[in-house]
């Protein structure tokens, strides 16, 4: 591939224009989203590019931490949309995503897989946090809809003298499984159905495929850990919000 510069990006914008025209011709109501999304992606990514350049140059631990914190807050807010307002969704997802990402990152540092350098921490955090966010969001969704649909089942258990945990355990486990489906499918098909982003990027940038694969394996295991931790904590904290101290289902 030719070295990528602003000219190549503008040329690639022709592809976005093609998508726009197709949508317009077929009157699919997404033209606005396409136009807005393309421009938004451009501005967002260029801004992030400059911010990262800045952070990488400074190598300040404070800045790295701040960047990770911002990512976590935005991800928590996004995941929190998937749980009713009354269930303290932001606090729940903030705890879950922070735990999943920080534990995973710290373990990678302790195991000597990475060092405290912006070029490791920032991109890996991005992957970790966005995957953790999706796992948590799916678990929230599942708990909300399952408990609502199975109120009678839950209250039958409670009426038979079971505590809230026993009454909801089935839905707790299903929610965790649902939150992890995506990362589990990823591990199953990685390299066969899709070349993941990190690997594609490295190969495009000229790294040898074997090096790219090794990094991808590290990334895969890392994501598995982060998603599992975040999804379990999300489900655990979310499901508690549906019960009170008197073992009553509060909807």
């Amino acid at each position, binding site marked *: 591939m030719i070295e990528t510069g602003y000219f190549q990006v503008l040329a690639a914008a022709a592809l976005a224009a093609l998508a726009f025209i197709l949508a317009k011709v077929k009157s699919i109501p997404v033209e606005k989203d396409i136009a807005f999304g393309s421009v938004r992606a451009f501005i967002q990514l260029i801004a992030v590019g400059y911010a990262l350049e800045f952070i990488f140059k400074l190598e300040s631990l404070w800045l790295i931490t701040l960047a990770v914190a911002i990512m976590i807050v935005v991800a928590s807010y996004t995941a929190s949309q998937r749980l009713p307002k009354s269930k303290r969704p932001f606090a729940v997802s903030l705890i879950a995503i922070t735990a999943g990402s920080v534990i995973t990152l710290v373990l990678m540092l302790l195991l000597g897989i990475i060092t405290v350098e912006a070029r490791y921490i920032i991109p890996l955090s991005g992957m970790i946090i966005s995957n953790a966010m999706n796992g948590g969001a799916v678990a929230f969704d599942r708990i909300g809809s399952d408990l609502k649909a199975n109120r*009678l089942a839950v209250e039958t258990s*409670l*009426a038979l*003298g*079971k*505590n809230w945990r026993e009454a909801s355990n089935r839905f707790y486990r299903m929610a965790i499984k649902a939150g992890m489906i995506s990362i589990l499918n990823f591990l199953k098909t990685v390299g066969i159905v899709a070349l993941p982003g990190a690997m594609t990027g490295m190969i495009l940038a000229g790294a040898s495929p074997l090096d790219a694969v090794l990094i991808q394996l590290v990334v895969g295991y890392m994501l598995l850990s982060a998603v599992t931790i975040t999804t379990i904590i999300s489900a655990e904290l979310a499901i508690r919000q549906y019960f009170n101290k008197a*073992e*009553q*289902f509060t909807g």
Partner: protein
Amino acid sequence: MSCQNEIILKVDNVHRAVKKNGTTVNTVDGISYTFNKGTIYNIVGPSGAGKSSFLRLLNRLDDPTLGEIYFHEKLITLYPPTELRKKISMLFQTPYLFEGTVRENLKYCCQHDDKTIAEILSRVGLKPEFADKQAEDISGGERQRVALARALLLNPVILLLDEPTASLDPTLSQSIERLILELTKNFCLTTIIVTHDPDQARRLGGNTLLLVAGRLIESGPTDIVLNNPTTDSARRYLNRELI
């Protein structure tokens, strides 16, 4: 019948408010009543009167927004909820069976042995082989009886039944009624049963509580409440709905 002199449950000025289309309504509106041991209580009243809502307060599936409930002269909030619900067992208006066999459903609370399970099945008019049926393959009436059996296996002191014979034919209904009468007599069980059928209330005897719009408007011995109601709204309801 000496056990009947003992007070088992006391409900004192109990309210339950819920939000309905933005406004707050009392589905249970200031009910006070004393229940004795070994007695049957029929709860009657029009649809939406708050009968089910009232039952849910007694085993703490919900808490009153105002008022107190005492079980054995102790506030029900002082018992661990899981223990209270085993002593005050409830059969829902639309019973739910868990996925799996009838046996698994009956073992759900306390892992009873197969002999006990066969026994309880026969008491609700089902054959022992019935235990191996899949819960999703049985009829509405069978479902109701399995759920009743499951509630009885908790060995409760008070049994809360929300229209337990609604989907049963007259013969089966009456066999369930006989079972309730027998448990009341032999084990001094207290039964609080919601029913739409005045004849059922008469057959069960005991006392009857008439609820209208969340209020207890009439209560006393079943015959008196059903035949000589004292209030106008009770008479109206009994003429239109029950008789």
